[in-house]
């Protein structure tokens, strides 16, 4: 296979940035998308050129490090997959592929396709936890939890913090990310104690970081590699209203 790439290159945060064209030949359809970029980068390095900066780590769809905007979609054309799980068999021979970084005010570009997502850590610091010190816990079976609640909490908790929801949103909102954590903990008895402070503090932090408000269009859910449901945003809103009423 042969593909034509248009890749966003930006030397550092203050550089204006531009698209640069590359042609990559001899691709095996079973290669992953990032392996295709490895091949290109090794070619650039051998020629003494600067390789394309992109971030990645586990390459199995769970660490949330990778995130490329491919042909106008976060993580590319495969539903429920991260960039590292996209394979070249999903592209046509001779196709032109446009690759950009996540674009959001709250995710400033570091270099080329790498962005700073530390805002997510600060949102979690604002309340995305249960305040239990090590050693305080009662027996794990002391509080039975209905299977359905545990399953729904789990589904929300599978968020990998990659930021695709923000990249997909025209408002660059982090509502799905925040909702996933609020819902995960709100559905469990252990998380109820601090539910009120949690939702208020996390939403305040989200706004301070420069993320926009929810557009209700659902682009986040459509592009989420872990299929985190919009239902969680509905729950977030209920939690928010409850918290406000209790003030």
């Amino acid at each position, binding site marked *: 296979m042969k593909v034509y790439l248009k890749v966003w290159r930006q030397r550092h945060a203050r550089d204006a940035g531009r698209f640069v064209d590359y042609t990559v030949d001899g691709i095996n359809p*079973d290669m992953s998308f*990032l*392996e295709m970029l*490895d091949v290109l*980068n*090794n070619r*650039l*390095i*051998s020629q*003494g050129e*600067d*390789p394309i*900066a992109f971030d990645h*780590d*586990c*390459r*199995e*769809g*769970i*660490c*949330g*490090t990778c995130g490329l905007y491919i042909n106008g979609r976060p993580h590319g054309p495969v539903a429920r*997959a991260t960039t590292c*799980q996209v*394979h070249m068999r999903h592209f046509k021979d001779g196709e032109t592929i446009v690759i950009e970084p996540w674009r959001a005010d709250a995710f400033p570009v*570091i270099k080329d396709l790498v962005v*700073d*997502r530390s805002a*997510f*850590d600060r949102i*979690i*610091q604002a309340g*995305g*936890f*249960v305040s*239990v*010190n*090590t*050693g305080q*816990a*009662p*027996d*794990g*079976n002391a*509080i*039975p*939890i*209905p*299977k359905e609640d*545990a399953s729904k*909490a*789990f589904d929300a*908790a*599978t968020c*990998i913090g990659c930021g695709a929801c923000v990249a997909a949103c025209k408002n660059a909102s982090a509502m799905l990310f925040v909702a996933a954590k609020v819902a*995960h*903990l709100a559905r*469990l008895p*252990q*998380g109820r104690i601090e539910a009120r402070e949690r939702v208020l503090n996390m939403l305040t932090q989200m706004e301070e970081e420069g993320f926009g408000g929810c557009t209700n269009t659902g682009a986040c859910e459509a592009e989420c590699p872990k299929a985190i449901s919009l239902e969680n945003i509905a729950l977030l809103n209920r939690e928010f209203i409850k918290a406000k009423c209790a003030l």
Partner: protein
Amino acid sequence: MKLFSISDKKLDGKCPTGPIEKRWTQHKASIRLVSPANKRRLDVIVVGTGLAGASAAAALAELGYNVKVFCYQDSPRRAHSIAAQGGINAAKNYMNDGDSVFRLFYDTVKGGDYRARESNVYRLAEVSANIIDQCVAQGVPFAREYGGYLDNRSFGGVQVSRTFYAKGQTGQQLLLGAYQALMRQVGRGQAKLYSSHEMLDLVVIDGKARGIIARNLITGELERHGAHAVVLCTGGYGNVFFLSTNAKNCNVTAAWRAHRRGAFFGNPCFTQIHPTCIPVSGDYQSKLTLMSESLRNDGRIWVPKRKDDPRKPTEIPEDERDYYLERRYPAFGNLVPRDVASRAAKERCDAGYGVGPSKMAVYLDFSDAIKRMGRAAVEAKYGNLFEIYQLITDENPYETPMRIYPAVHYTMGGLWVDYNLMSTIPGLYVCGEANFSDHGANRLGASALMQGLADGYFVLPYTIGDYLADDIRAPKIDTRHEAFEEAEKSVLERIEKLLSVRGKTPVDVLHRKLGLTMWDYCGMSRNAEGLEKALKIIDELENEFWKDVAVPGTDKEWNKELEKAGRVADFFELARLMCIDALHREESCGGHFREEYQTEDGEALRRDDLFSYVAAWEYTGHRQSPVLHKEDLIFEYCKPTTRSYK
């Protein structure tokens, strides 16, 4: 030059004595404490934010120490513990199937092929139950039964169900629990977070670990950080093989730099090859993906009885299939420990019965499970794993068997630590996969998560106090000290050396060659001839690296190639030590299979009379013969027998 020399002084693990079930309790009661007022004056550096690092950093901050926590990832939540799939063991006996602390202890010592310390392993089993309690309280959404109580499943190498799990994402959920506990402390200001920072050297002052040199991976700046103690939770070194199930950036640099500063390295040749990974598909491959061992609960492993059988797996009738694990090990069947399962797969493929395009794969078949439980039940249990498999291979495992092959997964070896988890450098602690301590020569499934969290939540927070009690009058560590000066200078010189080569060969190319050498000669099976050959190749490759590596760009920017080059340079040095260790251990045990030492039917032949010890290696200089220090292993409760899973 001699390959290595042997110290005549025995190394002491400082394990307590007395009845094993009382050792940890009595030890905790006898070690020193640091008062809350004094904790406020003490700084602790934690490097790495996987299960061990995040839990240690959170627990230490909760106690009131000033914690500085470092990770190379852009967020602590991305450490590779996140990828652990199957589960976490704990001796809760919730299933009423006869489990106990003693059985978990016994299974782990036996599973480790009698090369772990009894005292450590008993403590691990003892605190395992607390881990589950702690995680549930944090909101970790473990799998539950309809009554609302926690569910368990069985795992390789044992005959009880003691594995707690959250679908195939247990590591993710446990890590997020620890990460959130840590973020709570960062929010309170009790822990300070340094993401996108890589530790490049350890600073030792008057024989004590007093800080680190770290590189800010975004700006490229070198930074000095001082503390009264340093805790390394930097994971394993499986990426020395290039292809492994580790994340791409996992590396040995922090541990290796500490080794060069005086920390002994324990049992480096003990590496685990996981039996169920997706096979290599081409020479462009950048990493391997694990399929959780939990799949072996319901999947059956087989190869065709006929060599080069051209038929599709679904067309091969039952009586023409060789379910070789069930045939060779009727008692444990598909649930034999990882080392045994991996070697059995290699044996079948080497004998010419392998399947798939590369012929280096075996089938893992769910058709019986689907018949027995129904597709929906299989999907509920393993759905996300099947999805991962299909994404990578474009094959549907509900319809055709998975193809699997062993791959490098975990390293039992690591920095040597005593019972308090302190290395041979006073004030340097090592937790989780980065230490050598609890798994002997082979780790059982679902025990890595247990050990990481045991070390971080329930062991280190106690034992570190015993050391810091001496330091309550020590002032803040002054990073203008000449030891910081020297360490920073040596880091900078090394970076400049890497950048000055300006060769033609990308780091990956050389790393891949090193990995292939290690896989061929120091992988699933080893022999003296091969290991000696590997040592020569490693020298040649290292020479080539320093002559021709291509590292573009500068050190004052985000520069992945520079990061990689530094890590691979350290892997060359580690690879040499692994081969020396493998060469010196003239026996087969656990993950270390020496072809010269096997029984007539091809099982591992342990030599307890000669090798019942931990091999802890002291660094003496680059390409200099290391010194072997032995710590004798004494078994009072689990008498070494030939491990039999038949």
